[in-house]
């Protein structure tokens, strides 16, 4: 075959390097959109934290005053699978998955097919584990969705993490299957590269969540106005 030296796209006949370049550009733009969404989350979390409207930020350990709502926040925040450290734990798990994906991708580039399959496969498994951890964390919070702005913001961060993990698992499945079939190989590795880049960004998103929930717990606004009045709490 005349084209054995230069792999080409089966649909358009363009060299794979062209397709790869296009894929990278598109990926960067996709990440821009994802970054914007994550910034929206960070803004939501930190803005609500800074305002503490009607004293309703209410992290675990505080109570909402009775006339505001029927809900109460558990007084013992460490009662169950607690709030802060699991964010870091899940972040670390995702980092491991990302490192494995990078390992798989580097293996592909150096022609190590076994390394590629093992790396991407393990990355997929670890991503699934992260999803399970995230789910356990989310379902064992000592508060419910209606327990003040803190609960809402934290649950939203978790939901965003779960969304990202689902994406990672979908991508991981595809990369793993394609690695096994030999569709990702020494001369055609750009999809594994894209997955690695994207996972690196997801790690940053998880890190942001962990930082927020660790360092922004008690609101700086200690005497917010009482709803519907001109008095302060």
């Amino acid at each position, binding site marked *: 075959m005349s084209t054995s030296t230069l792999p*080409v796209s089966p649909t*358009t006949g363009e060299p794979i390097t062209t397709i790869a370049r296009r894929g990278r*550009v598109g990926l960067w733009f996709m990440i821009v959109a994802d970054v914007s969404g994550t910034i929206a989350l960070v803004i939501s979390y930190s803005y609500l934290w800074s305002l503490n409207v009607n004293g309703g930020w209410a992290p675990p350990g505080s109570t909402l005053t009775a006339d505001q709502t029927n809900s109460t926040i558990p007084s013992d925040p460490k009662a169950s699978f607690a709030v802060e450290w699991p964010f870091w734990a899940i972040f670390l798990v995702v980092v491991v998955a990302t490192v494995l994906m990078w390992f798989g991708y580097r293996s592909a580039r150096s022609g190590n097919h076994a390394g590629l399959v093992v790396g991407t496969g393990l990355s997929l498994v670890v991503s699934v584990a992260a999803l399970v951890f995230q789910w356990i964390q989310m379902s064992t919070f000592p508060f419910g969705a209606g327990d003040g*702005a803190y609960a*809402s913001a934290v649950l939203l961060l978790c939901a965003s993490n779960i969304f990202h993990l689902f994406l990672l698992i979908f991508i991981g499945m595809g990369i793993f299957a394609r690695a096994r079939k030999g569709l990702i190989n020494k001369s055609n590795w750009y999809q594994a590269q894209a997955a690695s880049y994207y996972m690196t960004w997801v790690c940053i998103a998880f890190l942001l969540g962990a930082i927020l929930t660790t360092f922004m717990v008690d609101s700086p606004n200690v005497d917010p106005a009482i709803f519907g009045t001109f008095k302060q709490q």
Partner: protein
Amino acid sequence: MSVDTATETKRVFGVEVPQPRQFGASGGIMRRLNFGTGLIGGIGLAAIAGWVTAIITPSSASNDTFAPMEPTYVYLAVLLGWAIGFMLGIGAFVGPLRWVVGRDITHDDAEYMAGKDLGRARYWKYTTDHKVVGIQYLIATMLLLGFAGLLAMLIRTELGMTWAELFSPSFYNSMIGTHGIAMIIAMIVAVTGPLGNFIVPMMIGARDMAYPRLNALSLWLLVAAIPMLISSMFMGGIQDGWSVYQPLASQAPIGMLGYQLTIITFAISTAIASVNLMTTILTMRAKGMTWSRTPIFVYGIFAASLMGLYAFPFFQYSQILGLSDRVFNTSFFNPLNGGSVWLYENLFWLLGHPEVYVIIIPSAAVALELMPVFLRKPLFSFNFAVAGIVGVVALSGLVWAHHMYMTGWAPAANYPFMLSTEMISIPVGFLVLVAIGTFWRGTAWTRLPLMAIYAVIFNKMIGGVTGIYLSDVPVDQYFHGSMFVVAHFHYMLMGAGLFGAMAGIAFFFPKMTGRILDERVGSIGLWTAFIGFQITFMSMFVAGLQGQPRRVLQFDSQFNISNWISTIGAYVIGIGMLIFLAAIITSWRSGAIAGSNPWGSKSLEWQTETPVPLENFPVLPVVTERPYDYGVPDPYEAELDARDQDLTEKAGIK
């Protein structure tokens, strides 16, 4: 592990290309999927999801305020079922699934999906060809514009009939909200959708978009979103204006879910379309098309896509948060429980303002693109046009809080935001300079597209100057929330945006349909609409100056006269738009056949045949010239040079 080596090859544009294994006939399951199966899938899954949800939801479920939650859950399930079922039925998930299992698409599959030899049926399928997507976008946009325009007529009827209350206040409010958001969606896609998809790849000398399947996905997501928006009208409606400020929106009936899911879906569609267009523009320009040889329209589309891409997620998240408040009882925007109304306003306007430029910049770019063709001279100062677009993009993300001067969220922030907002007038001024510089001493070929540009520039000046008032905090203290604002943004979004889109569609009509847009009927429609537009919104400025708040259905009798005039003008617009629509429809069916290049343009898209072949260019073009090489040497300059020579000689300077 068997490596799936190629078993056969195909000749693609002169290259032997090894093919993956072909499973079944080309196209595979896509052969059986079309808009009809999409509808079946959507309605079927919606019905099942709604039914199951109704069964499993305990009838006692209620929220904080003891409102029953069952309708919310059922409506949510129906909408989600519709969207997923529709996309499933039309075949949007086939590509991703084939990717995951590693069954790559062959050249034959790709050609089938691009609509090769499918005739008219390709317009009803998940077709990847950018030209088909462009036409589909055009139809979807016109439907949405028609729906929202009808609502506008009803709104003006209510406001004109000052002696009676035609609609209930809640229905009136929901008409306002639906009109607003439907128009915003329609105007966001009005240029970038049809023209961005159909024209841009040809303009840059590419065979298709960078990601053809994502292109189809973005279109059909928009189509999936439209029924959700319209259905909300029947579920209590969007009673809170297009901006659906919280916490008013949380009081609204469940129709609000339709709005929220529409926005969430549309944001995904926009992000995908933007990524696709930007990647196409960055990586697929023809050989030799350097940035200084790239037409200004491409710059405009790129800028609009970029702004949409970075700004839309904020809007999307504001609606996700609102949806979560409504469905899961969280409290992002519920001030009783620690939520903030200012959070909503900030997230909303972080999109809300860039979105204005997403609408205006493409239509300005259309204007600058077609002016050189009709004036037969180069674009005046191409660099300035680019600088203007870049300047608008750079400032677009820094001005959102001028919508929030009067909210009191941060009075000190009004100073910097006033500064950044008024700075915008400088890059916008560049674009105006380029326009009038191109008019300067040009022989105007006064065909419909160029005439529309006169209307656009006129409207844009008025919109721009009134924008300067509104950018000033003290003045905004009077105008904010009044009819003045409504008139101002209609001058921008409709007067500049929609008329620009009409110019663009008239200009590219021969390439898109193979026929010339009827000049006489089209012009009558355009100028009728233009005159009606001036009547409507000039008197709306007056109402605003007199102090009429916006979004009211009854008002003091002192505002009667300006509202009567406004309503008469609105009907004139309606008639004009119907005439223009009639011109489009009749010309499309039976207009004069256009050659491949009826305007004598020099840019690439006009150098292909009409109708455009599937692969656009049999041989990819190579660009060797600047885009607007029209014109003859300037006689005045020659005279000046001669005279100068003369003077220097007389003065004895060698």
